């Protein structure tokens, strides 16, 4: 049962992306029947190959729609603002060359793979920090910090409110 659900969900996801790619190419309407058939076959194959990988360890939580809304709000709001600040920060450091680098460790207390991925990508794209490694067993993040202010920092000092957001969205 669970395997069939994984397969069907992955196939539906692939079919949606395929239909977006071939939008407006049909001879009548938006799509033509030939493309629907080709898309179904390709989506079934993609589901067979990738079904196991996509839903391991808590991926099913992302099917709840309020998480998608939260994710969209997070991308457009706090994340985008932090990213703009990050770029001005890098511009300042490129021009002045003032750096104090180091690799620090902290533990944001996230359990699932999806939450850790979200937090790691957020950290990489925001001011002065770059994820180098994540310990799979304990959940420790090793972060290269371009301007070290504390050698054993709290999560809030490195990445602000991002662990809270990642927990809210993905756990």
């Amino acid at each position, binding site marked *: 049962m669970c395997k069939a659900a994984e397969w069907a969900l992955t196939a539906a996801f692939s079919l949606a992306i395929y239909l977006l790619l071939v939008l*407006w190419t049909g001879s009548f309407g938006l799509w033509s029947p030939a493309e629907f058939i080709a898309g179904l076959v390709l989506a079934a194959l993609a589901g067979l190959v990738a079904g196991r990988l996509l839903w391991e360890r808590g991926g099913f939580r992302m099917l709840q729609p309020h998480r998608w809304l939260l994710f969209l709000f997070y991308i457009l709001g706090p994340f985008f603002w932090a990213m703009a600040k990050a770029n001005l920060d890098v*511009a300042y450091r490129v021009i002045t060359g003032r750096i104090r680098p180091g*690799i620090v*460790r902290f533990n944001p207390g996230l359990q699932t793979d999806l939450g850790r991925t979200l937090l790691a990508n957020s950290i990489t794209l925001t001011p002065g920090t770059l*994820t180098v490694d994540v310990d799979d067993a304990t959940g420790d993040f*090793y972060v290269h910090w371009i301007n070290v202010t504390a*050698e054993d920092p709290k999560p809030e000092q490195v990445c602000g409110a991002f662990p809270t957001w990642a927990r809210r969205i993905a756990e």
Partner: protein
Amino acid sequence: MNVLIYVFLAIGATFNGLGAVALLRFPDVYTRLHGATKCTTFGSIFSILAVVIYGFAKGGGEGGTLAVHALIALVFLLLTNPTGSHALARGAHRGGIRPFRAVVDRLEERK
């Protein structure tokens, strides 16, 4: 609409150029990754957003196709770019490259 497109193209070109300068100016692998990843991702987002706005303003089949495909390219870029930079940083650290003038290196102490 035209002004918005010009502004987005200008922001995109500026930050992509900043990424190239950061790549040339910073002293070691990790700081170069900082500059390269952040600036080129941000600049590419704005360049592609200009294309999306152009496509939606043009409208019809061709403009819509352009906008949707550019959006898909944007999503893939936003997903793959930070992941690739994690992989490079991790590979570089395992390959024995130490951060330049680091004040602290907790990953080294773990091993």
